[in-house]
């Protein structure tokens, strides 16, 4: 017997996880088509496809934010991790250089985090990772022309929350399979360990940027008209 209602969990995901506009029309289309002749598997494929397409569209539209997150999580921090030892040993000699180092030391914690993450101790450095995350959002927010403290704080809070959940799941998986994975994957695992941080920073950027929700965008357009 064919069910007349699509899976509630899939509908919930469609309602809450698809980024961009036109959600109402899309949800109506899928419901109409499902009730006509489609299977539950088709509905799930459509929902997952819509989530992916919405995300890809947002990434394309907000390429500068996405680029910043990639640079921050995978580029800048990782490069510094490898450069730092040589920097301290060979470059820092004169008084101006020491001054620069003193300034840099204010961010040394961030770099320290990165070094620890790269060296595979991600699960012990929760606080440091959060600091790294927050610093990224501070730099990002400073570059937004219409800076809003409320948006910034929301970005930080959402980022921290997402990272907390991810860190818990990550820790759970590591606890179950970590040792075996470590042996198999080796060095690559340290890079894979960046993923939770990357997702958290990316989410924070999305929250911190102007008009991050449809309701806000609507309010803004109403205000203009």
């Amino acid at each position, binding site marked *: 017997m064919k069910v007349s209602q699509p899976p509630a969990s899939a509908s919930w995901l469609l309602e809450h996880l*698809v980024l*961009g*506009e*036109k959600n*109402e*029309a*899309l*949800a*109506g*289309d*899928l*419901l*109409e*088509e499902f*009730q006509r002749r489609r299977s539950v598997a088709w509905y799930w*494929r*459509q*929902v997952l*496809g*819509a*989530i*992916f*397409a*919405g995300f*890809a*569209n947002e990434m*394309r*539209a907000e390429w500068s934010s996405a680029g910043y997150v990639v640079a921050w999580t995978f580029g800048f921090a990782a490069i510094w991790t490898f450069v730092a030892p040589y920097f301290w040993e060979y470059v820092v000699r004169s008084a101006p250089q020491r001054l620069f180092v003193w300034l840099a030391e204010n961010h040394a914690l961030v770099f320290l985090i990165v070094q620890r993450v790269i060296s595979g101790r991600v699960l012990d450095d929760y606080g440091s990772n959060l600091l790294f995350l927050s610093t990224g959002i501070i730099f990002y927010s400073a570059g937004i022309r219409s800076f809003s403290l409320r948006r910034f704080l929301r970005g930080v809070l959402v980022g921290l929350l997402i990272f907390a959940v991810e860190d818990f799941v990550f820790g759970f998986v590591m606890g179950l399979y970590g040792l075996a994975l470590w042996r198999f994957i080796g060095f690559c695992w340290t890079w894979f360990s960046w993923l939770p941080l990357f997702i958290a920073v990316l989410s924070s950027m999305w929250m911190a940027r102007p008009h991050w929700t449809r309701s806000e965008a609507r309010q803004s357009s109403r205000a203009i008209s």
Partner: protein
Amino acid sequence: MTTRAYLGEFELMVMLALLRIGENAYGVPISREIEAHGGREVAVGSVYATLERLEQKGLVASSLGDPTPERGGRAKRYFQLTPRGLREVRKTRQALIRLWQGLPELEGGRA
């Protein structure tokens, strides 16, 4: 000099589907049209994402219909090409025809 909005493969397919369907062009018929002629399943979400992008470029315009009970009280969103969109499709067609001409590999209808 006007800036050309270069069309991707899927963007072009969506715009051609809009032309083929005419007035009743919303998410589901557009997906069906592409599936029927493109020979692959299409995610309705991808169609909407593409339409959103085309609308931002000014190549497509949309309007809301009335909500209906079989859609859970949600309205359909109808799409149509703008005059600029139609011009871009024509230009893309001409460019593709020029590129296809004189290629022996594509003659005879076999891969």
